[in-house]
């Protein structure tokens, strides 16, 4: 049911939602870090759980991941994942401390707190843009941080969906930083995973049903 009723029009609408959210988040990130941050046009796909891990760079890829639970008219999970080096780079420049290192699992309290705050600001701007656009009430939880294998982190957000389906609709926005040595390669991802029951609310709010 979840799989059958979603058409390409629906996916386009979700893409637009991802676009609006991500554009706001990119602006927030650029302002915060005083760097030019670019976001790609989001990909909206219905993928298997294993493919979801591949989107995030493979299940064993180590990332700094921020997770938020979304409540309100729309429920779901949101992740902001950054490769460890990129998280180090962002947070070092944010707190002006070059010793911040997420790699060893014992990041300083300040570093962890700054990372959570970064996740909070970005997902807050993403979700408030989404809320304004759809007039739906969307309340993010306090963000939680984990530095670990992306499979272990992201699978947590699949639990809710897995009750209903073996596939998940993912709104994936990649972020890149301009003028870096490795030429603007993909630095991180936003994954928005609405719970299956929430799609109706989203589509109705946008006049699709």
């Amino acid at each position, binding site marked *: 049911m979840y799989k059958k009723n979603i058409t390409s029009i629906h996916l386009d609408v979700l893409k637009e939602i991802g676009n609006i959210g991500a554009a706001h988040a990119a602006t927030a990130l650029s302002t915060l870090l005083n760097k030019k941050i670019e976001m790609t046009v989001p990909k909206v796909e219905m993928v298997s*759980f294993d493919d979801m*891990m591949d989107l995030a760079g493979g299940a064993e890829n180590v990332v700094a991941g921020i997770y938020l639970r979304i409540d309100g008219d729309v429920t779901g999970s949101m992740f902001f994942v950054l490769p460890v080096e990129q998280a180090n780079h962002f947070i070092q420049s944010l707190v002006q401390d070059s010793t911040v290192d997420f790699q060893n699992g014992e990041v300083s309290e300040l570093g962890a707190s700054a990372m959570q705050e970064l996740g909070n600001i970005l997902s807050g701007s993403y979700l408030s843009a989404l809320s304004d656009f759809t007039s739906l009430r969307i309340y993010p939880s*306090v963000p939680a941080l984990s530095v*670990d294998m992306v499979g272990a982190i992201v699978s947590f957000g699949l*639990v809710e969906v897995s009750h209903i389906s073996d596939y998940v609709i993912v709104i994936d926005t990649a972020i890149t930083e301009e003028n870096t040595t490795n030429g603007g390669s993909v630095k991180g991802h936003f994954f928005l995973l609405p719970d299956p029951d929430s799609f109706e609310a989203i589509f109705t709010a946008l006049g699709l049903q």
Partner: protein
Amino acid sequence: MIGQGQVVKVGIADMNTVKAPDTIRTSGLGSCVGVVLYDERSQIAGLVHVMLPDSSLGRTETINIAKFADTGIPAMIEQLKLEGVQPFRLRAKIAGGAQMFQFTSGKDTMRIGPRNVEAVKEYLKKFSIPIVAEDTGGSSGRTIEFNPMTKLLNIRTVNQGVKDI
């Protein structure tokens, strides 16, 4: 010689069996639980990547049996029987069931890791399969690989190193 065979990969909510010298592996276990069932004598083993405790939680017509503890474990036993394993000789090693994020919210979803572990243990007990070793709980992701020749389960984590159980 260890490591001569192929590595059979098991995805999320998936299962498979293996014969030595091959090994079987699943990556990035968080709240999910990897259940290895192996025959003490022959060099055959199976691995189920359990995502949810109970199929009654599922709300679909067709269920993926490997996804749930209550359906995945019996299905794996059946599959191993087909490969000639005597069920009474089965032993288990389990890993996973972490709580990746600490939340104050009491919502049940947040405790999915511990609930998965409880369910796996309940069903292994039901089928009288002893758990020889386990590495469960905590807050770390795990990649596990079982070698049916040595019967060792290799567990790799990002922050807690590597060990064999």
